[in-house]
């Protein structure tokens, strides 16, 4: 194996450009003759557009064009990517999501007009001069009242605010109800999974270009998923043929889900570029990001856990209302259903699981997948109710979990929520956690905290998630309207260095470093001779993008398969060069050889032969050395973990300080442990942010109260402890060729219940009768809970 193959903590090659200010993010591009776009956005949450007078704005200096919803009536809308069927067999309600609002505005920030001008300031001046007569209507904000349909509708034409009413698994409903009715013990918990704003540090930005000479369009955009944007723009929104549209996603400053989706602003700059024959650029302000990026989470849930007196689980039953906001964002219907309901068995051998999810339209920004997407919601509900149950039964929270864990010899395990877990060892993770987090020393630390007047608590959590989202056949049955494979082309150039075109997009995940480690490992070549090409639909075969912790498990596997094909062909060429049969050729460390002889040829010579095919068996073998693979896995991957945290609560102020955070994860085979550790640490910060700080709050009129970083609390360095991250307790994923499970979302899934469990534990040990506090567990909420 060469240095820097699978398992090496290779330093990231992309860092050099980022550290020297030479990264190239979308806003860093300003093509010649660029014009600038600014949007007129609704100030009200729900309103009837009576008229929009753009004449004064159009006459202002520098203004080139103004668009309103009228201009897009003839084109399509931005579709939902996942069709959900309600319990009664009815398809979900799918109101059109237009490029610009038409007829009604449906949330604060809903764009109803766009101005293109020579400069951004001129465009912004003209936006202020647009005279829009918008009659404010009552807003639908609270989900319970939205579901009641007693007043206003977000979309009049569908006659309801309920998008769907979904049961999973509907056939299990009666048995689950019956089991709960008969159970010796039932723990019930009502909770809110707080609404979050992803807040990737780079705001969204899109540049549209059109070449009238060729009819070609180019969209440079902040996307996790450039092929999906191209597909949606082509097939659903603008009808631009895919072969005439290139979508580029250059360096992207974080996504966390919010940049998976196609947004109306992307279509707008393309349409405007065509009309004007000039590049059109739009860059979101942070304020626009708060108002118009897809938000995350936002569930209101009641969960019941039924068990024997000894803590053996009998049933989990969940009723959830999931906010989808004013319009269906691309994966908004998959997130609260198949990414949530299917995980509601957790790590446990529970026989009965039933989940009911009502998706609800409200006059708020669209809600869609945000790091973890449905799985944090599932884990939080389960792991909170299990902790509450343990407390009610007087059991140790570790013991109750161990009692119900799926055991290591039970795989593959068909969960009661419909998934088949392929591998895992939850007891081993919990064993490791007890040691690493030093449970034995907790009591002494608690006593020390008490001397300082602080209440100390210990919270634990066990999670499982399904990621590496695929396979297409399965998700197709479940309602997906796209495939969820990925693709890669491995191109060995004549001089032996290698370009790998991948469908996954790297925006922090380090693909440019990690993917070459796989190829180098397989080919026995120096990883420095391998480069990754991503984020350009004109260069890459196809791709389904980066989200759902899928890049390595799915796209990495495509890279693996394409490299296997390279080895097969190179072996055939080598066999010809060595005058023997391919079956007799060994390939290791970059050298093809015949066992028992001194005959060998290096990989570089084989590559050269492929492109200079003199004395070449042209009848049976094509020249060139380039292979493409589309990989569609047989199953999700199932990372799991055990987390622990100790917190101190200041009983006078309610402030929670995190003293320790220990994360043990099973990710299967780890390609680059440095990058994996970083992914977990970032996820932990976001999960802790959700648990303690972050909250997207609308008032009753649909105004976003937490609409800037002055009111939306992002985790800062001094809010967080040093993390302990360990991924040594690994069980191999046994259905993809690398053996890896996804790692991108784990930290954000496992940490919120850990923290809340720790806070509740601290309060309980301090003598406070508090069994739950909703996130974010802010000082004021803790204080209120202690003083209720």
């Amino acid at each position, binding site marked *: 194996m060469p240095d820097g193959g699978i*398992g*090496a*903590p290779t*330093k*990231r090659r*992309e*860092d*050099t*450009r*980022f*550290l*020297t*200010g*030479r*990264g*190239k*993010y979308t*806003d*860093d591009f300003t093509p010649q003759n660029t014009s600038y776009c600014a949007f007129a956005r609704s100030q009200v949450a729900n309103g009837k557009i009576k008229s929009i007078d753009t004449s004064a704005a159009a006459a202002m200096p520098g203004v080139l064009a103004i668009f309103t919803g009228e201009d897009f009536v003839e084109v399509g809308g931005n579709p939902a990517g996942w069709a959900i069927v309600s319990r009664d067999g009815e398809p979900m309600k799918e109101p059109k999501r237009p490029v610009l609002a038409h007829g009604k505005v449906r949330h604060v920030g809903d764009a109803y007009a766009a101005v293109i001008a020579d400069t951004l*300031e001129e465009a912004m001046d003209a936006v202020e001069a647009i005279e829009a007569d918008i009659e404010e209507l009552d807003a639908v904000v609270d989900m319970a009242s939205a579901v009641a349909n007693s007043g206003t509708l977000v979309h009049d034409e569908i006659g309801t605010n309920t998008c769907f009413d979904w049961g999973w698994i509907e056939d299990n409903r009666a048995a689950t109800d019956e089991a709960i009715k008969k159970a010796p013990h039932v723990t019930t918990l009502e909770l809110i999974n707080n609404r979050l704003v992803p*807040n*990737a*540090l*780079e*705001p969204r930005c899109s540049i549209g270009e059109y070449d009238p000479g060729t009819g070609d369009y180019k969209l440079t955009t902040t996307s996790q998923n450039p092929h999906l944007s191209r597909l949606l723009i082509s097939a659903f929104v603008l009808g631009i043929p895919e072969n005439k549209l290139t979508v580029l996603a250059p*360096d*992207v*400053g*974080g996504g*966390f889900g919010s940049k998976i989706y196609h947004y109306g602003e992307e279509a707008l700059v393309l349409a405007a570029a065509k009309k004007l024959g000039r590049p059109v650029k739009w860059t979101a*302000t*942070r304020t626009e990001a708060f108002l118009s990026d897809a938000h995350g989470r936002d569930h209101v849930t009641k969960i019941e856990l039924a068990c024997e007196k000894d803590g053996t689980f009998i049933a989990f039953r969940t009723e959830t209302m999931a906010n989808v906001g004013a319009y269906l964002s691309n994966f908004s219907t998959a997130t609260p259903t198949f990414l949530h309901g299917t995980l509601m068995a957790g790590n446990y051998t529970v026989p009965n699981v039933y989940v009911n999810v009502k998706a609800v339209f409200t006059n708020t920004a669209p809600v869609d997948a945000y790091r973890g997407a449905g799985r944090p919601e599932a884990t939080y509900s389960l792991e909170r109710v299990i902790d509450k149950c343990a407390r009610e039964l007087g059991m140790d929270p570790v013991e109750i979990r161990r009692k119900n864990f799926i055991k290591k010899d039970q795989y593959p395990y068909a969960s009661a929520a419909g998934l088949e877990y392929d591998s895992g060892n939850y007891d081993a993770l919990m064993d490791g956690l007890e040691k690493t987090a030093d449970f034995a020393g907790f009591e002494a630390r608690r006593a020390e905290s008490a001397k300082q007047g602080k209440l100390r608590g210990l919270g634990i959590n066990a999670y499982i998630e399904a990621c590496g989202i695929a396979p297409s056949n399965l998700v197709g049955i479940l309602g997906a309207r796209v495939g969820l494979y990925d693709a890669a082309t491995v191109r060995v150039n004549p001089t032996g260095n290698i370009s790998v075109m991948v469908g996954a997009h790297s*925006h*922090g995940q*380090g693909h440019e470093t990690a993917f070459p480690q796989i190829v180098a490992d397989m080919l026995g070549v120096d990883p420095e001779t391998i480069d990754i090409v991503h984020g350009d639909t004109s260069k890459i075969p196809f791709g389904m993008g980066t989200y759902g912790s899928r890049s390595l498990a799915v796209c990495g596997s495509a890279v693996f398969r394409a490299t296997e094909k390279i080895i097969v062909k190179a072996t055939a060429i080598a066999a010809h060069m060595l005058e023997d049969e391919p079956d007799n050729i060994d390939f290791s460390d970059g050298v093809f050889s015949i066992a028992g002889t001194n005959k060998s040829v290096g990989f570089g010579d084989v590559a050269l032969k492929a492109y200079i095919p003199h004395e070449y068996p042209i009848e049976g073998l094509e020249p060139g050395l380039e292979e493409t693979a589309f990989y569609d896995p047989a199953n999700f991957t199932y990372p799991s973990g055990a987390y622990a945290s100790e917190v101190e609560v200041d009983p006078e102020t309610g402030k929670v300080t995190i003293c320790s955070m220990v994360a043990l994860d099973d990710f299967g085979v*780890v390609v680059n*442990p*440095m*990058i994996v*550790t*970083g992914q977990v*640490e*970032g*996820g*932990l*910060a*976001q999960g802790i942010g959700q648990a303690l700080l972050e909250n997207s709050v609308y008032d009753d009129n649909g105004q976003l109260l937490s609409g*800037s*970083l*002055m009111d939306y609390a*992002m*985790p*800062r*360095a*001094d809010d*967080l402890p*040093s993390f302990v991250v360990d*991924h*040594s307790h690994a069980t191999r994923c046994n259905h993809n060729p690398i053996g890896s499970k996804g790692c991108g979302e784990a*930290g954000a899934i496992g940490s919120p219940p850990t923290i809340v469990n720790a806070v509740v534990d601290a309060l309980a040990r301090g003598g406070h009768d508090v069994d739950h506090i909703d996130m974010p567990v802010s000082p004021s909420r803790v204080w209120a809970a202690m003083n209720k």
Partner: protein
Amino acid sequence: MPKVTMNINGRARSTEVENRTLLSTALREKLHLTGTHIGCDTSQCGACVVHVNGKAVKSCAVFAVELDGATIDTIEGQAAPDGSLNVIQQAFKDHHGLQCGFCTPGMVMSAAALLKDNPKPNEAEIRDYLEGNICRCTGYQGIVNAIMAASGQAVPAIAAE
């Protein structure tokens, strides 16, 4: 339009600006130094931190026109002329102090300012100093480790698996 001349990364640079042109805008759009990033509009995120006359400043919260004659250091001037990374940049690379890279220029410039005032900060001092720099990717662990390492303090290495 007023003209300002600033010494940027050791070189005199002149550009015409409007009074309302922010330093960040002047750097990015007039002088094509796009390493300085804009992540917010309330001066909270710190992606735009540069040094003005040796002090860390949020370049999105100062007008370029105020800075005629000032010395400005940006991320583009941190590496040696041959491209080799300075000690802070190298430590960020060695300790995985960045992921998407968007906050990184501001982080590196803030770290440089910290180490100038406090050459051996402890972990709490580092975390406190970074109050005005938001990173959404790393959870700050790699950044804190990098700054510790850049100041010559021991940081655990990540092992191969």
